[in-house]
């Protein structure tokens, strides 16, 4: 088998020791790479009942099977750990090159356990593995840290690090590499809890594909396929927010003011069709991506002058924009920069501020308690100001740094009625009241409300996808099986390291060819989906084992009780009956108990027990 080294590097920070575990072809056949490897390591190696911020939590990093090879959009790296935000197994995927560099250093995956005695960073250069003193880096931003480390080790090392938010255990702290983030689920706080500021890697070993000539041909072919795909030009000019106007106006599912509305009336001001030509100075891309949806957004004058970010992504236009009633694109960009620099997930951070704003609107929170004016009306100033406080855990920012679930419990006074989350995860920018299957996906996602674990917004909004046609977004019928199948498919995607934006043309039957060219291993489509199912079952079993059961999956009150009041999806709601029917269908499709437990027979069938 080519492409893999058959080595997993295991580092124990408490003991300052490292060891190499060897694997063989069977490991790849069973778990594929990327998310599959990372999830396997956490699932099997973390002792049951471990607190997410305790030394025994396992944080794993694994490059996707394609990462390091020139395959368009195929350079992704997976991180995984038990999440302090959800209490579930969270994997988060990033577009930085740290995973591919690990592969060049000779490892297929990295597992970190324990807690360093003092602030530290991990340095890996091929066979050399050191835990180094990070006293000079602690307290520094995600931009300063790589700068300092590159001055020390050379321009070509790759650095993944946390910001101050990770050090301060903000529940949604992220991990940054090259302005790309493993954003969701607070994996940055897990690093912080381990006193681990950064991972620095330089690798000089070869990555050998099984068929180099064929790989060159395949790489160029898919680059052309992508360039000729219908939305290539729009996506590369306007970024991931390209379809914001359509979601907002045509579909009416763009959550606004903490989901009180589903159409943002000031949409024009945050739409990329407005700002791309005014603020974007350069295209940016993830590692190995030939379709740059990243935009260098620069503010040259005014009170936000000096802001420079790789953004704003669609989800951030919602979270730091519409969710907070913020129509100032410059303010949202500054908010994005604060999140990046301090190391916070923009989705959860913004959604949590929107939640607090609604509490102020309803008189549940007062200006005095919050320590500043925090309203939808003054969001332009309030959003950046509160983000600073959250990332540094200052004042009321310390409460909001807990995310909506824990913050609402602490605030009390009916605040939970307005906390929008599943499993403690603030949702992304799709109002699922008008997208029933996507609502199911928010519940079944093992990391809480997520648009990417099933990627189900696309099938429902477009009405057809892959094996299905005539999909009715307002109907719960058949969604259980479809969501389960999409989850398995997306597990495969995250294991080979492909970007979800390729899922429209890089369907599963195309993956088998590429995997064979790179590894020499033949897989059938069914075998790949079976691996996806195995990965999803590991996550599901882990979560059930950690006490997260069906009651924790349920949709929040607003989705079940408050019909969408405005726009094309007006009147839409997911009723309790619809919710439970979809969940029952889903559990049946997975052959899990109705409480969400993978059965012993299923685990045995998947060779997990």
């Amino acid at each position: 088998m080519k492409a893999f080294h058959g080595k997993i590097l295991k580092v124990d920070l408490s003991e300052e020791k490292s060891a190499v575990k060897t694997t063989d072809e069977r490991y790849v056949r069973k778990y594929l790479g990327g998310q599959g490897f990372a999830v396997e390591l956490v699932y099997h190696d973390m002792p049951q009942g471990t607190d997410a911020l305790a030394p025994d939590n396992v944080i794993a990093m694994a490059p996707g099977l394609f990462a390091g090879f020139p395959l368009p959009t195929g350079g992704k790296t997976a991180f995984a750990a038990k999440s302090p935000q959800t209490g579930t197994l969270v994997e988060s995927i990033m577009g930085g090159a740290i995973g591919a560099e690990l592969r060049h250093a000779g490892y297929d995956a990295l597992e970190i356990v324990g807690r360093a005695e003092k602030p530290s960073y991990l340095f890996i250069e091929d066979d050399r593995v050191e835990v180094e003193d990070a006293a000079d880096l602690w307290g520094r931003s995600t931009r300063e840290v790589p700068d300092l480390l590159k001055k020390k080790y050379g321009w070509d090392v790759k650095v993944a690090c946390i910001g101050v938010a990770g050090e301060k255990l903000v529940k949604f702290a992220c991990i940054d590499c090259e302005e790309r983030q493993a954003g969701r689920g607070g994996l940055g706080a897990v690093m912080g809890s381990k006193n681990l500021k950064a991972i620095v890697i330089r690798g000089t070993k070869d990555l050998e594909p099984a068929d180099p000539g064929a790989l060159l041909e395949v790489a160029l072919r898919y680059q052309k396929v992508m360039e000729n795909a219908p939305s290539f030009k729009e996506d590369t000019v306007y970024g991931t927010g390209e379809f914001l106007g359509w979601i907002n106006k045509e579909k009416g599912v763009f959550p606004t003011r903490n989901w009180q509305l589903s159409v943002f009336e000031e949409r024009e001001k945050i739409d990329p069709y407005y700002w791309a030509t005014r603020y974007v100075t350069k295209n940016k891309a993830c590692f190995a991506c030939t379709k740059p949806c990243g935009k260098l957004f620069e503010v040259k004058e005014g009170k936000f002058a000096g802001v420079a970010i790789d953004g704003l992504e669609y989800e951030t236009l919602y979270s730091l924009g519409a969710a907070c009633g913020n129509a100032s694109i410059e303010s949202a960009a500054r908010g994005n920069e604060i999140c990046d620099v301090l190391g916070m997930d923009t989705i959860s951070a913004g959604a949590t501020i929107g939640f607090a704003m609604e509490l102020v609107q309803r008189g549940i929170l007062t200006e005095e308690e919050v320590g500043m004016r925090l309203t939808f009306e003054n969001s332009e100033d309030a959003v950046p100001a509160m983000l600073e406080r959250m990332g540094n855990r200052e004042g009321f920012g310390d409460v909001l740094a807990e995310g909506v679930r824990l913050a609402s419990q602490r605030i009390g006074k009916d605040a939970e009625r307005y906390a929008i989350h599943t499993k403690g995860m603030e949702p992304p920018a799709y109002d699922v009241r008008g997208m029933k299957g996507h609502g199911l996906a928010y519940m079944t996602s093992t990391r809480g409300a997520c648009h990417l674990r099933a990627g189900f917004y696309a099938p429902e909004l477009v009405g057809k996808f892959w094996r299905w046609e005539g999909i009715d977004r307002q109907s719960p019928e058949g969604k259980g099986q479809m969501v389960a199948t999409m989850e398995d498919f997306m597990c495969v995607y995250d294991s080979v390291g492909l970007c979800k934006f390729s899922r429209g043309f890089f369907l599963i039957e195309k993956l088998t060819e590429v995997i064979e060219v790179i590894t020499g291993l033949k897989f059938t489509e069914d075998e790949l989906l079976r691996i996806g199912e195995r990965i999803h079952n590991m996550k599901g079993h882990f979560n059930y084992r950690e006490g997260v059961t069906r009651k924790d999956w349920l949709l929040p009150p607003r989705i079940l009780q408050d019909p969408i009041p405005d726009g094309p999806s007006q009147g839409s709601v997911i009723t309790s009956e619809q919710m439970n029917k979809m969940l029952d269908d889903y559990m049946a499709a997975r052959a899990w108990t109705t409480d969400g437990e993978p059965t012993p027979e299923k685990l045995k069938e998947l060779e997990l027990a």
Partner: protein
Amino acid sequence: MPKMLVPYPEKCTGCRFCEMACSLYHEGKINHTNARLQVHKRDVRTDFPVVCTHCIVCGEDCCVQACPVEAIKVEDGIVTIDEDECTACGSCVDVCPFGVMRMEDTAFKCDLCGGDPTCVKFCPMGAIKYEEPNTEQYEKVRTLLEAE
């Protein structure tokens, strides 16, 4: 004047597709230590490709002058290495201002893929072009490198 690789830093997204393709094309495997060009991804504003200019930029022929055994020559405006003559002393690697002279058993460098450069084909953004040499673009890259 023969055509050369010309870098356009303002168009580079930092994806490194060119680097991987270069290595794969020349070596049949991927390793950025043997790619004949490099992509620097410095900060949120700055990504740029560093290519061999075949000494167009300064006209100094640093590597040619540095080679003690005259293994490096300029033929039709293109800098080439005679691998049989090369003693792998590393002098050329030390003097190259762009850091694109590489060394394994012998020195090796960009050969423009015989007139159909792989990096150009694999760059979707036109950040590396194969055209008339452009000193202004080479100077841009040199300035970026000096700031590193």
